[in-house]
């Protein structure tokens, strides 16, 4: 009998020792081009980011761990507790582990955290129009496009649109 190995994805607290990894991921070509951040990170910027994170109730960030290996980072930012919404941030830094469904499981865990634990009503994702992979990624988890911000970001010598996608609590099926 062939046993299918269970994919073990966990969201873990970020520690100081993870910061080097984060800098490497976020500065990599594949990740950098799909983000709106336009400058390369150094360890000082990343450290400041980490220090501010601790006392910031508007952001909850996690390391994504796959069979005990750290493969990415995800979280909720701009958490608005009055209107119960937040934006998603997610990166699978280990490029060779893309397109294996690991991100989707991490996303489901994160959505579950947002909708169940934080009791959010709406979670939003913003995707640059050329990032078809991410658009498909969120669509698969039932995100819908609410708006297309025209010419809102300048990258590689031209203007691009950003897709604003969202998922409402009522449309989220727990796994």
């Amino acid at each position, binding site marked *: 009998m062939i046993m299918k190995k269970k994919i073990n994805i966990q969201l873990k607290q970020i520690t100081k020792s993870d910061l080097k990894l984060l800098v490497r991921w976020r500065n990599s070509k594949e990740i950098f081009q799909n983000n*709106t951040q*336009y400058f390369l990170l150094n360890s000082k910027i990343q450290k400041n980011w980490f220090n501010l994170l601790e006392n910031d109730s508007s952001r909850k960030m996690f390391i994504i761990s796959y069979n005990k290996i750290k493969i990415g980072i995800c979280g909720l930012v701009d958490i608005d507790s*009055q*209107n*119960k*919404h937040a934006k998603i941030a997610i990166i699978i830094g280990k490029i060779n582990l893309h397109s294996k469904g690991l991100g989707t499981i991490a996303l489901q865990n994160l959505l579950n955290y947002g909708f169940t634990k934080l009791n959010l*009503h*709406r979670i*939003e994702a913003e995707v640059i129009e050329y990032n078809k992979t991410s658009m498909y990624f969120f669509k698969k988890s039932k995100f*819908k*496009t*609410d*708006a*297309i*911000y*025209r*010419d*809102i*970001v*300048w990258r590689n010598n031209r*203007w691009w649109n950003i897709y*604003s996608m*969202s998922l*409402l609590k009522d449309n989220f099926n727990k796994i």
Partner: protein
Amino acid sequence: MFEGKLVILRALEKEDLSSLKEWRNSLHVRKSTREYKLLNMINQKNWFESIHQTNPPKDIMFGILNKRKKLIGVAGLTYIDWKNRHSEISIYFSTNNWQVKSEAIEVINLIMEYGFEELNLNRLYVEIFSLMKENIKLFTKMKFIKEGQLREKVWRQNKWWDTLIFSKLAKEYKKLK
């Protein structure tokens, strides 16, 4: 100072803050803005300090004067993104139902002139709560394009409301001039 036929835009001053506080706490402004708390002078002063912290500024605010030099409203550009050259337009007046007045149109035109022609911005936008029919009408009339509708994004008056994003690009502004 930027002068129109009906109004003048001047830099917002600290002395304006107590008027602003009254207006922002009045229902006609409160139901249209992201702020849900009632504001006191500490909030106002902190906000005023915060918009003077960065250079180039993230927010550029004006007091709106009528021709008798009386302060009648506030307008400006907020969340200015100097890299991607976009910004949100913020505007409100002391009185209810300002959206139908010619002064409102003139203020938005002055703000667009400043944003597009002086600051070289590429996109100016507004986010309007779906309950604010007057604002939707105003920006539609001013040929802003609706980019979409963010579902159930705000909680007001005991229910969820969508917010509508309207924008105008520099090329559209220049074509209409």
